[in-house]
């Protein structure tokens, strides 16, 4: 376990907002093995997305650095594909063309035209979207858009797949479907994944390790929880599983006892997803917190 495929070392970042220095992250250390699935969990505004963006190369760390497969990360690239929360498909390109845009860029030299076409279709088949190749993003549902977004990233054959709350904006049923799809695909392809989530169940269900972050400013990694549940995992069986329930409990403990939610600041409330207090109240009152995050059903 010391291959250190992805190595985040002593990463810190300071933002300069209108003359005021704001330290968002400090001494973040995380090492991933190839094929590992890691979730980042923490309260809104704690800098999870910042970590992801530094790994993606979209932000430059003020100190420390990221190495992927022996090379230092200095700029964004297709070897670190990002699935954004709001799908981020080009609304003017069809489902096929959205994936083809990435494929034609990454494989323009190594694959022939016919091979690239087959590769686009193959990846859309992986996420069960091969029936809607000619549809525009505006014509398909939110879950379908996110499937296409995942296909676009998979098609780049990234060394590490970065997912920024990929299912955060979806309703609970669609979210469960996509989680299952993602588990299946990851088992098949062995992708290395970092996923940001607010959903404790999602983190436990999908991850090999759960990285829990402390609250900002100057956020860092608080605890890392290994999830040694056997794969393939089945959400129905796990719901009763003692180990699963115990792991959930530990994450909840960290989030709500050790790092209790701060009053949302202006900056934090700008984020689309909030861990709202009613849910916290439900947890404390001992009500079955069946699926934290059901507040998206209305969305």
């Amino acid at each position, binding site marked *: 376990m010391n291959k250190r495929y992805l190595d985040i070392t002593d990463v810190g970042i300071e933002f300069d907002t209108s003359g005021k220095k704001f330290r968002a992250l400090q001494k973040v250390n995380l090492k991933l093995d190839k094929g590992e699935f890691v979730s980042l969990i923490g309260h809104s505004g704690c800098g999870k997305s910042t970590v992801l963006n530094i790994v*993606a*190369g*979209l932000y430059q760390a003020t100190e420390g650095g990221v190495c992927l497969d022996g090379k230092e990360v200095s*700029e*964004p*690239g*297709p070897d*670190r*594909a*990002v699935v*954004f929360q*709001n799908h*981020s498909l*080009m*609304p*003017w*390109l069809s489902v096929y063309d959205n994936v083809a*845009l*990435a494929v034609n*860029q*990454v494989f323009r030299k190594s694959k022939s035209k016919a091979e690239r076409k087959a590769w686009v279709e193959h990846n859309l088949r992986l996420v069960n979207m091969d029936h809607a190749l000619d549809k*525009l993003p*505006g014509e398909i549902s939110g879950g379908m858009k996110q499937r296409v977004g995942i296909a676009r990233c998979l098609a*780049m054959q990234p060394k590490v797949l970065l997912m920024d709350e990929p299912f955060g904006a979806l309703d609970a049923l669609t979210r469960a479907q996509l989680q299952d799809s993602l588990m299946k695909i990851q088992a098949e392809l062995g992708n290395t994944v970092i996923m940001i989530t607010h959903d404790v169940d999602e983190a436990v269900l999908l991850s090999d390790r759960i990285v829990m972050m402390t609250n900002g400013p100057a956020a860092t990694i608080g605890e890392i929880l290994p999830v040694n549940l056997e794969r393939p995992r089945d959400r129905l069986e796990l719901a009763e599983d003692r180990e699963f329930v115990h792991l959930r409990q530990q994450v909840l403990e960290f989030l709500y006892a050790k790092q209790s939610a701060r009053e949302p600041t202006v900056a934090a409330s700008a984020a689309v997803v909030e861990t709202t207090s009613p849910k916290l109240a439900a947890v404390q009152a001992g009500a079955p917190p069946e699926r934290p995050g059901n507040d998206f059903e209305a969305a």
Partner: protein
Amino acid sequence: MRNEALRITPHERLEQLVEALRGGNWLKALVFPMLGILAFLMVWHLCASRIDTSLGQFPGPVQVWEQVQNLGAEHVREREKAAAFYERLRERNAKKLAADPNAVIKDRQYTGKPTFADQIITSLLTVAAGFLIANLIAIPLGIVCGLSSGIYKALNPVIQVLKPVSPLAWLPLVTMVVSATYSSDDSLFDKSFLNSAITVALCCLWPTLINTIVGVTNIDRDLVNVSRVMALSPMVHVRKIVIPAAIPMIFTGLRLSLATGWMVLIAAEMLAQNPGLGKFVWDEFQNGSSSSLGRIMVAVLAIGLIGFMLDKLMLTLQKRVSWDKTALLR
């Protein structure tokens, strides 16, 4: 039953009328604009009959309609004259050739006075040329400014200062520069055509430029990040992401530009005696006959109608080019 019907207020009656019209959408689409136009014609007629000028009474709808017919007839007559001229020329040349097969044939152009329709065509060609020149500069420059905040900051002061300048201030400069640098003996375009076109271009550059900059600057950050993650080359980035994303704003700019260009053109033609609708208006004004005001009014309406049609044309083009077919365009 009858009493109830009697108690209907005017407001309710209007509603009933509207309800009745709602049955046929085409009817509604037709009736309301018709009512508006009719009301306008009434007001025009009433006002015109009270205004007396040194050139006679201000023309009302009836007099203007007469002038429309006159101008149409003049156009037909002028075309007949031209056709007759070319016919005579052909006969004379044929005769010459019959007498002496080696005779040099002279090809003369008919030099009659341009009719109203000719003036319209000249104006349309000029505005098209000016609009084209402006956008060949404005759109690429707008994209560059939108992508690079450094270049934007460098150019913004210049843009802001030049933007509000009236075309009439540019015109003398343009005229002098064109006559200094362009020889019209062997050239494709008349100097006057270039003067008007360049003046139009200088004025309709700005709306497209500014709207393109705004459109490009406001592209969704996530889409830009997707492009960075895919490591798209700058050219592909512009072609596949920047331009489609900015198309709605670019078209807003284009429509404003074309409207500005059309307005500027009339003024430029009037002032610089360049051929076109503006010159037609000026000539009629100088002419000062009893029919002049009526003919100018025809030109006013023609300018308005053409401006309206140009905007419709751009709107149709926008609908065709834009990817968002559900967007409400007005």
